[in-house]
């Protein structure tokens, strides 16, 4: 029942955004709406995990532990973003960057975007899954090109074209999956997930293998897996500040969700090894490419975007290793990366709106100019690069442990090497930027309360949840164990 609540609120809010004229009031309504969604998603997750079974409504909505988990991740990040948006959009309107009318459009698009993302993990039909993911692209393209200047229009165009082509390949893969299904079932026409997975063992291996390559290339484009990642740094660096967090934190994860859904069918039908090898291959390529670009990066938001590619690579390796422990690490990493990267993008947005530039070489003394943001960014940087006691450390160590125990020494070594290099690069870039003297003519800036609350909310998740989850790992291990056949 909660799912109708979760899907309904964003739709109502998107209408309300156009009607309510008082911006601050609406911002608060918006954030409280997302708080309600967050609670609903926690209830949903608990219900599904405890009952251990899947819920299906009218054969259109289908919820199991995997989808409930993704809904929870989306709810967390979208709540933080709604909270952060209040202060950010108000500042933009006050400074005359955007008009009052445009601020209303922002809130409307924001809600539609969140709705489309909640829609992805809740649909039953794999064809509708494709439609939902294409919908996320189309809506967020407006949010990427929101500032309406040369750079943002260029980024939006690249985003919409590259992702649409990618997603067409995913549709091709989906059609081949339905072909395999109709061969196995003797002419039935269905793309519903339970039907597909029930017949997965009987499907033609060759068709499944070809189809999965198309799926991986298609949804991998949307997920930002490396050679198809080229839209990602442009879109993330040009999008409205809070939206960058949504793009990186959860939009990429919805594509990972789609890959997993098809991946599970492939592991049942064409063997685990094939799925694992492909995921590890793309993961390693993503890590290698992002590592090089992080080293030489000059633009703050692009640096964070490349770091998203790195983390998607780690997640993909985690699922590729195939053991329950690694899959659990990858699931945890999805959550941890979502909250940590949102925090980083929020602080980057604060810095950019005060310094009016993206170039890291020209930004100095952030801790002095923006004390709260500066310190949060410093802590967030350590969290992002996998420093204990933060939660990313735990998920990364789980993946590395399972790589070693599974005998994949080469993969573990490569992972560690890239992580070490990226850690060094982050320290180098951020050390210069955060410390140092206040630039001339700049005063200490007051930060908005809603922004601070969003930071604190995320920071609690980064510190506490990483530790708590370690002790209640039974549920997650359960999900992970049921995910792939052995």
């Amino acid at each position, binding site marked *: 029942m909660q799912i109708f609540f979760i899907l309904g609120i964003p739709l109502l809010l998107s209408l309300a955004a156009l009607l309510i004229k008082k911006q601050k009031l609406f911002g608060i309504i918006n954030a409280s709406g997302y708080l309600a969604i967050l609670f609903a998603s926690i209830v949903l997750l608990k219900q599904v995990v405890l009952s251990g079974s899947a819920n299906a409504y009218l054969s259109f909505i289908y919820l199991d532990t995997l989808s409930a988990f993704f809904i929870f991740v989306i709810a967390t990040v979208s709540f933080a973003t709604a909270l952060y948006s209040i202060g950010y959009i108000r500042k933009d309107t006050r400074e005359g960057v955007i008009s009052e009318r445009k601020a209303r459009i922002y809130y409307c698009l924001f809600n539609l975007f969140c709705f489309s993302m909640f829609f992805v993990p809740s649909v039953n039909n794999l064809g509708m899954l494709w439609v939902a993911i294409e919908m996320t692209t189309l809506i967020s*393209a407006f949010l990427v090109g929101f500032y309406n200047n040369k750079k943002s229009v260029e980024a939006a165009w690249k985003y919409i074209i590259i992702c649409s082509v990618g997603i067409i390949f995913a549709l*091709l893969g989906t*059609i081949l999956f339905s072909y395999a299904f109709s061969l196995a079932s003797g*002419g039935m026409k269905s*793309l519903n997930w339970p039907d597909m997975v029930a017949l997965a063992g009987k499907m033609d291996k060759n068709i499944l293998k070809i189809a999965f390559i198309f799926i991986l290339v298609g949804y991998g484009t949307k997920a930002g897996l490396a050679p198809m990642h080229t839209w990602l740094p442009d879109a993330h660096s040009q999008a409205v500040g809070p939206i960058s967090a949504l793009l990186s934190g959860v939009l990429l994860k919805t594509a990972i969700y789609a890959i997993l859904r098809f991946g599970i069918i492939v592991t049942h039908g064409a063997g685990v090894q094939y799925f694992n090898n492909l995921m590890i291959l793309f993961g390693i390529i993503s890590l290698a490419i992002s590592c090089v*670009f992080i080293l030489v990066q*000059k633009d703050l938001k692009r640096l964070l975007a490349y770091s998203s590619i790195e983390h998607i690579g780690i997640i993909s390796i985690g699922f590729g290793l195939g053991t329950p422990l690694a899959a659990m690490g990858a699931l945890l990493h999805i959550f941890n990366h979502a909250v940590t990267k949102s925090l980083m993008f929020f602080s980057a947005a604060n810095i950019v709106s005060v310094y009016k530039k993206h170039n890291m070489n020209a930004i100095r003394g952030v801790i002095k100019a923006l004390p709260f943001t500066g310190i949060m960014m410093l802590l967030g940087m350590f969290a992002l690069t996998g420093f204990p006691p933060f939660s990313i450390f735990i998920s990364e160590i789980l993946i590395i442990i399972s790589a070693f125990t599974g005998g994949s020494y080469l993969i573990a070594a490569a992972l560690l090497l890239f992580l070490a290099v990226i850690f060094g690069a982050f320290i180098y870039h951020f050390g210069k930027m955060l410390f140092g003297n206040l630039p001339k003519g700049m005063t200490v800036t007051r930060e908005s309360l809603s922004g601070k609350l969003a930071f604190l909310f995320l920071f609690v998740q980064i510190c506490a949840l990483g530790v708590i989850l370690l002790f209640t790992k039974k549920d997650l291990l359960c999900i992970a164990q049921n995910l792939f056949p052995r």
Partner: protein
Amino acid sequence: MQAIILFGILAATYLMVIAKRGPALIRAFRYQSFCLFALTFIIALREHQIDLYIISGLLFALKVCLIPYLLYRIISRIKANEGLGLFVNAQLSLLWALVFTYLAWIFTTRLIAPGNTAQASMLAIAFFVVLAGIFLMIFRMTALAQVVGLLVMENGLFLLASTVSGGMPFFVEIAIFFDVFISVIIMGFFVYRINKFFTHIDVNKLSRLKG
């Protein structure tokens, strides 16, 4: 009858590959969509399924009428040069298209291995149309050609879906149609924007964001 329509799709695709100007490209796209409509309609007549009638009706309304109309409007409104900006000239493009046709045939017969030759040729044409769409997107420089390339790929997929599994489930098919329609509108919107800011729609020159 089916064979003639399939040949029509093939011919329309070749026309698109050698088109040098926007209106010619859109006209060929219209021919291709019309052939697809005819194909679906014939199947609908044969099988008497209400779903197929609705789908063919939508195909006619959206892809034969509305989308080409919108594309023509974009061309006339932006008043930009009508040329498509060919990276590869028409003759060489045709040669590439022939190679793609052969590759699609090899791919279907060796890898998918369908039951009979009629289905095999339909599959091969579907894959060829998808490949031609990719070719248009990569080797034509204007934003408009990229939009058409995307639509061509989608047409190829429609043909593929109706060949291999008798089409997707009904409401998925409808959802995909509207999705494609909305994406054309949104892309058109961005083509206007690009034209406004850059005074051209040459995507090859969009190179501010790097690294």
